[in-house]
């Protein structure tokens, strides 16, 4: 029998390959004049009598079928079970006789669907191909089938018996250990990252120097220990700025983390400690953002906002615009910070990823100080704004 079936389908080989989906150059006369679309697109009204799409309506097998390379040609030879005598679940949709209450579990809850049945019909929201128009993969006879029964908790008997079936076979102790390992191995991933975002030399018309901006984290999906550091220095001198932040990072949503902790500035002198509260994450349109408030041991409040964007030019060549803006609530003359907008850095770096983890780059950086900060800066070294040419490497592991 099956052999006959295969031979019958084999006669289809000679036919030109026919697209398997409705919408691919449909070749049946019944196809409507719609533009090509995905399978599952309604191509016939649903008012057709239930039997019309049932398997009983399949055309007899034979040459007429194989002309269409219907994969199911010949299937009729196999006595197919009669279609289950289920009423067409779409009956009544247009008359609105179905209850309109939406159980909470209905994925369409909240939609305004006065004429949907209570149970989610697997075909709600899309129409089924029907035999007349579905030239493709669905065998003639694709039908709505049994509507979804209600979502309910399991029957009482499902809660009977031992909590863990294997305990009786292998012993509760051995199983308890194995269960804990299984729990950890299915989602409890602890991992790490160290990112040296900028390790660069800066060439200016004044003194050349170097700059390091790095961060690392360790932990799970939600809670991580996060370390950030920035060091800025002229070559051959002690750093102008050197800070380390030690933060607890807690995921707030799919993209953003709340980060709180401490920051310690080794430089500029006098060194000082701060409390930190900030948000770091991925903003819409793929902007990496990081904003934080700092409360120093002296009671000074400052803030910093950073944003980066990676524009892929090719798979490996990436242009990264970057901006950092610093604010202060008050003057902090001993470290040369004035109230308000104190400093802005805008950079553009072009990096080439030799491998994902290692990318040399070149770029430019523009620095400007504002307000009282600029005043302090002028007094110190007379330079309130400057361009730098930068080159360095971005690396992570």
């Amino acid at each position, binding site marked *: 029998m*099956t052999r006959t*079936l295969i031979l019958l*389908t*084999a006669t289809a080989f000679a036919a030109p390959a026919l*697209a*398997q*989906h409705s919408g*691919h150059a449909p070749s049946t006369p019944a196809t*409507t004049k719609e533009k090509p*679309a995905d399978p*599952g*697109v309604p191509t016939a*009204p649903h008012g057709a009598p239930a039997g019309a799409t049932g398997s009983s309506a399949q055309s007899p097998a034979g040459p007429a079928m194989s002309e269409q390379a219907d*994969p199911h040609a*010949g299937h009729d030879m196999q006595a*197919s079970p009669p279609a289950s005598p*289920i009423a067409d679940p*779409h009956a009544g949709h*247009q008359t609105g006789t179905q209850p309109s209450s939406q159980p909470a579990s*209905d*994925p*369409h*809850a909240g*939609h*305004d*669907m006065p004429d*949907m049945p209570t149970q989610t019909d*697997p075909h*709600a*929201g*899309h*129409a*089924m191909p029907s035999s007349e128009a579905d030239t493709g*993969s*669905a065998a003639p006879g694709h*039908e*709505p*089938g049994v509507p979804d*029964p209600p979502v309910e908790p399991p029957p009482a008997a*499902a*809660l009977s018996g*031992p909590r863990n*079936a*294997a305990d009786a076979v292998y012993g509760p102790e*051995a199983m308890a250990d194995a269960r804990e*390992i299984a*729990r950890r191995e*299915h*989602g409890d*991933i602890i991992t790490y*990252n160290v990112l040296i975002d900028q390790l660069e030399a800066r060439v200016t018309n004044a003194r050349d120097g170097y700059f390091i901006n790095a961060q690392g984290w360790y932990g799970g*999906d*939600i809670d991580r220990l996060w370390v950030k550091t920035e060091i800025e220095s002229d070559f051959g001198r002690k750093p102008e700025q050197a800070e380390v932040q030690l933060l607890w990072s807690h995921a707030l*949503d*799919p993209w953003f983390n709340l980060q709180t902790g401490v920051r310690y500035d080794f430089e500029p002198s006098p060194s000082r400690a701060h409390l930190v509260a900030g948000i770091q994450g991925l903003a*819409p349109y793929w902007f990496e953002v990081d904003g934080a408030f700092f409360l120093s041991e002296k009671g000074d409040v400052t803030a910093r906002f950073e944003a980066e964007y990676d524009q*892929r*030019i090719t*798979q*490996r060549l990436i242009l990264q615009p970057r901006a950092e803006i610093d604010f202060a609530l008050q003057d902090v003359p001993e470290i040369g910070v004035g109230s308000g907008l104190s400093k802005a850095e805008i950079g553009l770096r072009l990096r080439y990823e030799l491998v994902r983890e290692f990318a040399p780059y070149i770029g430019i950086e523009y620095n400007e100080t504002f307000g009282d900060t600029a005043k302090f800066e002028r007094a110190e070294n007379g330079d309130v704004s400057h361009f730098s040419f930068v080159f360095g490497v971005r690396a992570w592991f």
Partner: protein
Amino acid sequence: MHHLIERRALLRGGAIGVAGLGLSGLFPAWAQSGSAGLAPAMPTLSGDDIRLTIGQSDFTVGGRSAHAITMNGVLPAPLLRLKEGQNVRLHVQNTLDEDTSIHWHGLIVPFQMDGVPGVSFPGIKPKTTFLYEFPIRQSGTYWYHSHSGLQEQLGHYGPIVIDPADADPVAYDREHVIVLSDWTFLHPHQLVVKLKQEGGYFNRQKQTLAGLLRKGDPEEAMSLADRLMWGKMRMDPTDIADVTASTYTYLINGHGPKENWTGLFRPGERVRLRFINAATMTIFNIRIPGLPMTVVSADGLNVRPVTIDEFQIGNAETYDVIVEPTEDRAFTLVAESIDRSGMGRATLAPRLGMTAAVPPLRPRPTLTMKDMGMGGMDHGSMPGMDQNSMPGMDHSAHSAATAAGAAASMGGMDHGSSGSMAGMNMRDKSKVPPTVKVGVGVDSIAMAPVDRTGDPGLGLEDVGHRVLTYRDLMSLTPNPDKRPPTRTVEVHLTGNMERFMWSFDGEKFSEGVEPIRFELNERVRVVLINDSMMTHPIHLHGHFFEVVNGHTGSHPLKHTVNVLPGAKLTFDLTADAPGDWAFHCHLLLHMHAGMFRVVTVRPLQGEAA
């Protein structure tokens, strides 16, 4: 980029010599570099007592070697050839320094023999031997693999063929097992670390500025408006596979594309190919240019024959196909990864050493509106849509007039309309039941998921030849349980691409979730709603379920089902296997990241320990 060009050039090169048969010691008999097929005389593992030794061996592919975890020293593992109705005792010796296990994928066994550590048994400790013993109650193509850690990625998998007790309804003259897998020289834990550090780490086919400016590149054919829309969602429409050919070599019977595994045939023979996707993270598109394939079984059980030119196979699915090559020439078997970053390649030929042209990689598919979970929406009404209600959404589409409108806009083919999606909430909590925890681990919710059993899989809508869909599958024998399901269990497939978190209903298994509970012999309908933008092959242990695809009474019975993004996939289940069973995504790293549940079936009856 260079890497890809090299790879494509290599594959375009076509005639790559067959590897010397001197390697033969590295492969089991059934997977020799040139195989005449499975034969009764072949030294497979059969009988009532089978011994398997799990250990470390060197594995070589593409001229590089590394440690693999193997069974009896070979990768893939030996073929287990069993007979329906026999009892089998499998003595599994663990010579590793770590726990191991074997799960008999698709076999109906008592729960304590199912081989999932922490669910069905404690696992196999180092330097111990575990005895599996169970009756063989079925026939068909199955496979076996580790369920411990990430050992499957290291080579711990092999095929099972069970011959039926009665006459096989499928007639064939010769058979080959085709085990598909993926191999990396990175340690599997490194894969996880990289993906946690950078979700798109392995994707070398992202959209670029150069691509936007280049005209006519099908991989980049997306308007700036659409790019911005995806960007606003922080979703990458090119994120098709988490791990790609940038690290993977795709293997067929343990052979890379250069090694070119060759299966022999005589022209005119009916050749049965038993495809098993044993890959860790790769869904494959399978085709044999010039040779139509007639699918005769899915997941080991017979279906009505259906002839196609290509099919997509999710991880852990199996398909048997019949091919009838009549010409005296070679055919290339192509196993293209779903993201088309690379392919596995093998040859079917009348004689060793013959090769056929290797087709170039096809352009990478791009996710569409339908993959975004908006397949059920009439996009024509999108302007003016607010975040909580969708006026004008046509949920029933039952009239021909609205059908035409939906047809014009469904499936995301009509990119022009999506610019008006501004203001839509792609993470609308009102769309999911309260059982779904919409938190950090859920970055998207399908607004209007649809039945996609009629869809062939990502990127296969317009390939110009016949591609298998689930709707093509009809069980050869009537479904055994005629009772309609009494209740629905809805499970959402959820994830966060950026943090590489994967879960069911927004909760990772590690968070201490409750099992999914069924009563013994209960008829239940399970509705899987894929809120994520990736295809997930979902596997339920210990059972076969009926995929609801419109062929009532003849639904195909499967153990693993590929759920497309934005899809609502329904299966009916008779919970006839008492015990505790794993239920998970078979993309191994998704399972490892939390996409795992235990299903309990109670009361336990007649289960002798």
